[in-house]
């Protein structure tokens, strides 16, 4: 339990370090959601597939570029813990990308 609490605190402090970017991204997502939600006939369900696809693509790209962006490389992946850590790091980028893509994709699937 302590490690979970510590992890949550690390993420919280990390967010404070990047607060303008975090707020900017949250506002952008909120505006996209508001824009989509106020348009008639938006295809939320149909928008999920392309949003997930965008998220998957961003995850893959993030997976490939993150070691270099953190002054490391794939040569430094020592064991499975490293690969798992990198995957979750990349998946976090992918999740944000999917969240941003969802209202856009949903708006493109309007039926009305």
């Amino acid at each position, binding site marked *: 339990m302590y490690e979970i609490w510590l992890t949550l605190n690390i993420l919280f402090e990390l967010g404070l370090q990047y607060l303008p970017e975090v707020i900017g991204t949250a506002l952008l997502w909120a505006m996209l959601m508001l824009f989509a939600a106020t348009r008639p006939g938006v295809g939320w369900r149909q928008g999920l597939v392309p949003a997930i696809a965008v998220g998957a693509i961003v995850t893959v790209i993030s997976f490939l570029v993150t070691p270099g962006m953190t*002054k490391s490389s794939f040569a430094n992946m020592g064991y499975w813990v490293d690969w798992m850590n990198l995957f979750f790091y990349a998946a976090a980028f992918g999740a944000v990308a999917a969240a941003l893509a969802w209202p856009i994709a949903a708006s493109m699937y309007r039926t009305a």
Partner: protein
Amino acid sequence: MSDKSEACPSAAPANGRRRFLLGASALPAIAGAGLTLAGAPAHAALKTSAHIVIAGSGLGGLAIAARLSRGLDGAKITVIDRKEIHNYQPGYTLVATGIWPVDKVSDRNVDLMPAGVEWVREMVAEFDPVANAVVTDSGRRIEYDYLVVATGLHLDYAQIEGMDVAAIGSNGLGSVYPGPAAAEATWHAMDSFRRKGGSALMTLPATPLKCAGAPLKMTFMVVDRLKQAGTRGASNIAFHSALDNIFSVPRINDEVLRRWAELDIPVTFNSKLVAVDIGARRATVANPEGERREIGYDFIHVVPPMRAPDAVMNSPLPWQQGGFAAGGWLEVDPGTLRHRRFPNVFGLGDINGTGKGKTAATIKKSAPLVAQNLIDVIAGREPSQHFDGYTSCPLLIREGSALLVEFDYDNRLTPSLPMIDPLQDSYFAWIMKYRLLKPAYMAVLKGRV
């Protein structure tokens, strides 16, 4: 000629796009974390009118101030320290090896001081535990009911003849410990050295050290920087330890020595740096018999002997006998961190005369424990918490990889998560050191973890 003006090419600040991406990636988890943190259950505060003085406003002083201000209702808490800038000391090795820009390690202390805490911007000059009082360097006498000594330690460069801290960065002189400017200057010296290669002399004194892994990290990173510059073949690196080991935990000691043998880094034991001629780039080492020998170098990393600050050393608070007496280290019980002769005094961090524990990780584990033990004592109970000596060292072994070493008083390796292999070269350990430990440090400082 000074090397200080040379550029620091590997330490460029993160660009805007990278910052945006990093911030965005943390968004969902941060939102969750924020909700969780906001909803954290509060423990009932103990009502008291006690006056608690905390000497020092480093990580230990601020962490316990934050915890006590929440855990006590009605107490007067006074922090005594003149320091206006709070430095993230675990980042010094990153600055000194060209990984981080220097501005990442400094924050304003005023922004970190917990609300409701009285901050006396002076230094404790005298401890008078018999009279339950401290005297500041302005002559002000402050009485207390309970005292937490969190002064940190003194870097005793004066024990090295010819050493001049102001000269760090010039003439191949490096030393990571004094502060951010020295760490940055050390990188300038190392960067200049790696371009041509030559002889590097790495040192280790015989005293207890804060961040005892730093001399090892600097050694690994010198090798890595030489390799990157293509000058490793034209260089030799020698490590001189004033002890008969290089690290107090045998398994880590053996592992590092094994790696250094592979990296062609010879180690000379029982060889203590006693003098340095900065202009001539010559060092003098001495063995326990007092025989002295001069060694020329192109780059030297000086690790100073360390001891308690004068105010503690010249007070009744240090150990009176045993191995910690010479350094003036605080006489605390290693389990409770309560003073052995003055029961209303506790120690926290580097100042403690204990077998292990002069790192930020030690504060992470011990600050909550000392806070609870102090609250127990104020409530009239015996201390309920026991410290196992936990400390941790993300040991940089090259740019991009580290070992995440955690251990306790008994030299047991104690990884926080069972899947962590402390002897495995690891990107995860690197990312902890490079990106995640400062956020963890800030959470400790705020008394949340």
